[in-house]
């Protein structure tokens, strides 16, 4: 029973860290640019497809395909930001929602056209398959790998935001874009780079998540709620908020599906509404 519980907890944490990796970009877009981007899942999907295509068509190994997925998605994100997104920073939330739903629909149709409507398979390298014995517990090797990657990325992100000049610029731009611009910070450039970074991380998350979340053209809509939820509950514009929210969400979702499968996804939606009522501005609320 205890082992069982720990197993669920472990799976939930692995799932949650994946959600965190994908959603952190969305948190930045909402916190920094105040932009409600429902198309964020489409970037994750793009990363997944880049990874799968590289592996199946060009025979690139999984670990080598991951950075490419990151870079490719980041580039696409940057181009879209410069061409389209930046026009809507000052628009109403409704316009942003409609615009990003439009982008999502286009992404879904394009993915169906290019890759077909079926689930994409991913063949993990040998050392990431199967189970690993840790302290008498059988843990999925791939899930351990996932958690390790996300910890590494979170630390790197923390360093980037807290310790570097660029991180200081991001924080300044979040707090007050006008004053930052007045101090000579190129806010537009910070926006573009941050958006690219966020999209890239989503792409990486999508590629890493094929084995856990699956990959088919409905991906952006299927998981949209989860990404939004992480940000809405965690509060936009921070790192620790979405992290806690994603882990909570992952654990509750896995536990709900494991212990009470008959009510399924209901747990997560109920949790969301309750949390939003209790914490309208998010757990670590600054701006939501």
């Amino acid at each position, binding site marked *: 029973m205890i082992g069982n519980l720990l197993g669920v907890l472990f799976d939930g944490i692995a799932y949650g860290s994946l959600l965190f990796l994908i959603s952190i970009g969305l948190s930045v877009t909402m916190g920094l640019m105040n932009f409600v981007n429902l198309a964020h899942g489409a970037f994750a999907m793009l990363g997944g497809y880049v990874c799968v295509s590289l592996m199946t068509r060009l025979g690139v190994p999984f670990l080598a395909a991951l950075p490419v997925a990151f870079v490719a998605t980041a580039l696409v994100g940057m181009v879209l930001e410069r061409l389209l997104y930046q026009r*809507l920073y000052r628009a109403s939330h409704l316009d942003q929602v409609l615009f990003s739903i439009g*982008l999502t629909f286009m992404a879904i149709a394009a993915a169906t056209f290019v890759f077909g409507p079926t689930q994409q398979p991913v063949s993990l390298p040998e050392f990431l398959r199967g189970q690993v014995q840790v302290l008498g517990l059988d843990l999925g090797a791939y899930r351990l790998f996932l958690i390790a990657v996300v910890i590494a990325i979170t630390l790197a992100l923390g360093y980037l935001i807290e310790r570097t000049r660029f991180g200081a610029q991001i924080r300044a731009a979040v707090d007050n874009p006008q004053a930052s611009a007045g101090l000579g910070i190129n806010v537009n450039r910070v926006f573009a780079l941050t958006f690219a970074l966020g999209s890239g991380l989503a792409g990486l998350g999508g590629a890493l998540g094929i084995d856990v979340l699956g990959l088919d053209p409905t991906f952006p809509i299927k998981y949209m709620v989860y990404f939004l939820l992480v940000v809405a509950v965690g509060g936009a514009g921070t790192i620790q908020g979405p992290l806690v929210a994603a882990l909570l969400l992952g654990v509750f979702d896995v536990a709900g599906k494991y212990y009470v499968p008959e009510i399924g996804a209901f747990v997560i939606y109920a949790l969301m509404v309750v949390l939003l009522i209790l914490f309208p501005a998010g757990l670590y609320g600054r701006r939501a």
Partner: protein
Amino acid sequence: MMGDKVTTLLKQTHVQPATLRRLLHDRWQALEVVFWLLPLAAFFLFPDYLVLGSQILIVGLFAVSLDLILGYAGIVSLGHAAFFGIGAYTAGLLAVQGWGEPLSGLLAGGALAALVGYAVSFLVVRGGDLSRLMVTLGIGLMLYEAANKAAFITGGVDGLSGVEMWKLLGLFEFDLYGKTAYLYSLAVLFGCFVMLRRLVNSPFGLSLRGLREGPKRMPAIGAPVRRRQVAIFTVSAAVAGIAGALLAQTTQFVGLDVLGFPRSAELLIMLVLGGAGRLYGALVGAAVFMLAQDYLAGLNPAYWQFWIGLLLVVIVLFARGGIMGGLEVLYARLGRKAK
């Protein structure tokens, strides 16, 4: 042409911002009458398309319900299908359980949706745009999951079949060609529209527009913001419920998709396509959307989704106000030239 009619229609109705300064009145204009004669003419001109026709009328009513909260009161919702679905399941289940009287089923659907809408509205109106989006989305998804899991009542993914409707008013049977369904839908749509048109042209409707334009200033002139928002949200939920009940009764089937997120998203698209905040925009948007969907989705469903996405992006970036907004601008330009 249709376009000319609508342009002149706009000229004569009081939906233009400029005329808002004048006292509100709700006299019917000649071209509004013409607009409403169109669906009646379609009944005689296209007898083979009555099923599609009643779908358009029903979805039009649904779009009008969203227009009330989004176009007039400025409340964003991503889960309006929840109320549509409540109405549909209420009417459908009543009929399955042996009460197939259409009008009372319709009212029951509307009443239950209004009740749920009233309860939910308190959660919705308290937050900002983002939390409104999330709460409406969450409630929509919760209801979808509930209907999905409660398959023993709702039929789950297979849908609710065996909806047997009695004769409308005890006189008209729902026929295979959809004649009764079409006229029934048209009558309900028109009846609701007349009431809502009166509502939005009342001082209450004007205060809603005030809330949309200046949410911070309205309390300063003593308007009870929350109460107004709760009221309009409840009315909107009721209308959505009536539309859902209408769909269940005329198609004699309730699918799980009545509650789905795509339905809420498409509804937003229709409203934006037609132009929000005008009532007629919702109807025009629904008609154009449904006709285009019928034609394009027949060619290829995946392409259809691509084009609708592109359309949405283009509308947001370049054509704010949709079809009716565009016609207004066009009319304003023509008017200036004429002077």
